[in-house]
C-alpha cells in the first residue's frame, strides 16, 4: 500500500515519544487504547487507537456545527464499543435515542443528564470522568476554556474513562471557537458526505468525512468513512480503498 512508509513510525521517533511520555508524568496508563477497527485510521493514532483515560473533542463541520448530528453518532459509536454505562450530558434535549440504539448504544446503557448551561455540563462531565465506573462520558458543550479542558483531561487520566467533548454551538459564527487550544488529546471534525451510491433509487450507507485535526504525538489526517453500523463500527468505503479518498477529502475540507 502506498501509505505504508509514511504511517509506520521509526524507532528513533518511538524513543523520543517514550522520553516525552516520561517527562509528562507516569499517571497516564500505558497503551490503553480503543481501536476503531479501521487499519487506516488506527495507524494514524499513537498506540493504534483512541486513547482511554483521555479527553477527545468532536465537532460537526459546516452546518453540522450547530446540530452536531454526525458528531453525536461518531461519539455514540465510540461509546458503544466501550464497556459499562455511558453518561451523556446535554443542554438541548434533541438527541433521538433510537438513532443511538442504531449506532450500537442501547437505551439501557445511556444515562442522560440535562444540565442547564455549558458550565453545568462541564461540571457533570468532570464528575462522570472522576467516577471511573463509566465506559464513556460525553458532554455536549459550546465554549470550553483551556482550564476546563485541562480539568477534564486530568479527571479522565485518573480513571481511564474516555471523555468526549461534543462541541456544539448555538450559531454558525461561534464555531470559530473550535480553533482555540484545549487540552484534549485528539480533536475530530465529522462532516456529512453524499452517501454510498446505490444502483436503485434510495439513500445508501451514510458517509462521513472524518478529519483528525489535532492529535497529540501524531499527525493530523482525514478519512472518508462509512457511518457507524449496528455495533458502532466505522468502515472504509469499498470503492475508495485505492487512496482516491485522500484527494477528494482534502478538496472538500478546504471548501468547508
Amino acid at each position, binding site marked *: 500500500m502506498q501509505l505504508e512508509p509514511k504511517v509506520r513510525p521509526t524507532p528513533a521517533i518511538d524513543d523520543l515519544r517514550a522520553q516525552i511520555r516520561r517527562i509528562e508524568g507516569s499517571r497516564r496508563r500505558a497503551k490503553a487504547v480503543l481501536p476503531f477497527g479501521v487499519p487506516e485510521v488506527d495507524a494514524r493514532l499513537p498506540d493504534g487507537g483512541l486513547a482511554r483515560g483521555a479527553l477527545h473533542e468532536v465537532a460537526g463541520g*459546516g*452546518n*453540522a456545527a450547530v*446540530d*452536531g*448530528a*454526525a*458528531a*453525536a*453518532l*461518531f461519539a*455514540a459509536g465510540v461509546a458503544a464499543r466501550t*464497556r*459499562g*454505562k455511558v*453518561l451523556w450530558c446535554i443542554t438541548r*434535549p*434533541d*438527541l*433521538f*435515542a*433510537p*438513532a*443511538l*440504539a*442504531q*449506532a450500537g448504544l*442501547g*437505551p*439501557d446503557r*445511556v*444515562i*442522560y*443528564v*440535562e*444540565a*442547564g448551561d455549558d458550565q*453545568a455540563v462541564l*461540571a*457533570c462531565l468532570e*464528575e*462522570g470522568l472522576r*467516577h*471511573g*465506573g*463509566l465506559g464513556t462520558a460525553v458532554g455536549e458543550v459550546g465554549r470550553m476554556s483551556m482550564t476546563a479542558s485541562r480539568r477534564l483531561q486530568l479527571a479522565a487520566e485518573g480513571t481511564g474513562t474516555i471523555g468526549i467533548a461534543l462541541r456544539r454551538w448555538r450559531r454558525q459564527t461561534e464555531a470559530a471557537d473550535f480553533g482555540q487550544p484545549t487540552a484534549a488529546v485528539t480533536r475530530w471534525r*465529522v462532516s*456529512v*458526505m*453524499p*452517501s454510498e451510491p*446505490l444502483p436503485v*433509487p*434510495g*439513500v*445508501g450507507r*451514510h*458517509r462521513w468525512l472524518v478529519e483528525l485535526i489535532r492529535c497529540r504525538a501524531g499527525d493530523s489526517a482525514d478519512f472518508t468513512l462509512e*457511518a457507524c453500523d*449496528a455495533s458502532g463500527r466505522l468502515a472504509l468505503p469499498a470503492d475508495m480503498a485505492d487512496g482516491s479518498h485522500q484527494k477528494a477529502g482534502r478538496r472538500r475540507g478546504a471548501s468547508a
Partner: protein
Amino acid sequence: MAATQAQVLVPGLIIQDANPAADAEGLERLAIWVLERFSPIVAADPPDGIVIGSTGADHLHGGEQAMLAKLTARLEISGITVRAAVADTWGAAHALARYAIAPITIAPERGAQAAIAPLPIAALRLPVDMVASLRVLGFERIGDLLAQPRAPLALRFGSELGRRIDQALGTTSEPMEPVRPPNLVEVRRVFAEPISAAETISRYIGKLVPQLCEALGARGLGARRLDLVCHRVDNRLQVARIGTATPVRDPKRLTRLLCEKIETIDPGFGIEIMSIAAIVAEPLEARQVATSLIEDSPPDVSDLVDILANRVGERRIYRAAPVASDVPERSVERIPAMAPETGATWPDHWPRPSRLLATPEPVETVALLPDHPPVWFTWRGVRRRVRRADGPERVFGEWWKRGPELAAVRDYFRVEDEAGERYWLYRAGDGEDAATGSQGWFIHGIFG
C-alpha cells in the same frame, strides 16, 4: 340546615357524622405523605390545610411552579380537590389558598402585602366574632385594615388582630412544628456554642452520618431520602434534602451528598441544633457482589447518579426507554436512571435521525403526488436540491388512543441534498385524501 331538609333537596344523599379526630388523623397522614415526597418541613394546618416550607426542596422538582403543579396533580389523582398558594409567609399563603379566585396562586417574592390586600378580612385567620365586628365597622378587605393606624384597632380588638396581620406580612415570625412520621430514623446534635462556618458544618455532618447509618443498619434499612435540618439561633429552620436512586447506607456517599448542599444553608447568626433524618428508608440487605469465579459485573454507577441528581434535579437525569408507538416523538419515554435494565430497544426497520426537532418545522417543497419525495425544499431560508431519497415510511395516527387522529397519516422520507446533508421530512397526509392531513411538508429530524 337540618339533615332531613338536605335529604329532601338532594335525593340519595349519604350522611356521615362529623369526625374531627379522624379528620385530623387523615390530615396528619397526608402531611407525612407530602413530607416524604416534596419537602422536609411540612405541618398539618387543621382543620383543612397543610403548610409546606418549600425553601430548600423546590429545586429538586424544578422550581416552585413545577413542584406545585406536580403536587396538585398527584393529589387530584387521589380524588382530593386542591387549592394551593405559594407566598413568603404562612399567613399570606393561608389566605391566598383559601380566598384567592384562582385555585393555584403564586405570589411574587416580597409581594405578600399586595397579594393579600384585596382579600376579605376572614382570610386573616381571625376569630369569627372579631370578623363580624370588623364588618360592622365597615372593614371588608385586608387592604382596608392595612391602611388604618394600628393603635385604635389594638385598643378595641386586642393584640390578636395585629399579630395576625404581622404574621401575614412577615414582620413577626411564625414557627412551624414539622410533622414527623412514626419510626423515623433521626440523629441530632445540640451545640453548646452556635456554629456557622461551612467547615464546621461539614465536620458535624461527617460525625452525624455514621451514627445515622448505624441506626439504619440496625433495622436493615437504607436511606432513599435524607433531610438535614439546621435550627438557627433566631428560631428559623434551614433545610437541605438529598435523594438517592437506590437505598444507601454508606456513610461516605451520604456525607458527600450532604456536604454538597452546605452552600444552600444560610447559617445566619449560628446554628444550635443540627439533625439528620432518613425521611424515606427502604430495606437494604447485604449481598455479595464480587467473586473471582464469575465475570466481574459492570461497575455500579448509582453513586454518580445520586451526585448528579442532587445537583441538577431528579427529573433531569434519566434514561430513554422504548414505547410501542410508530409516531417518532411518542416512541421515547424517560425513565429513572437506575430503573432495572430490560434489554428492550426500538425496532430497527428504518434509520432514525440522531437529532429530532422538538416541533416539526414547516418547509416549502415541490413534490410529485402522491408518493414521491420532494425535488427540492427550503428550510430556514436555504433552498436544497434533493439528490437521493428514501421512503415513504407511512405512520398512521393512533386512533385507538386519540380520537382526532382517526384518519391522520404522515409519510416520512429520508432525503439527501447535494452536499450530502440528510434530513427527515414528512408530509402530513397521504397525498390524496384531504381528511388525512394538511398535505403540508415538515422537517422533523437531521441524520448524521
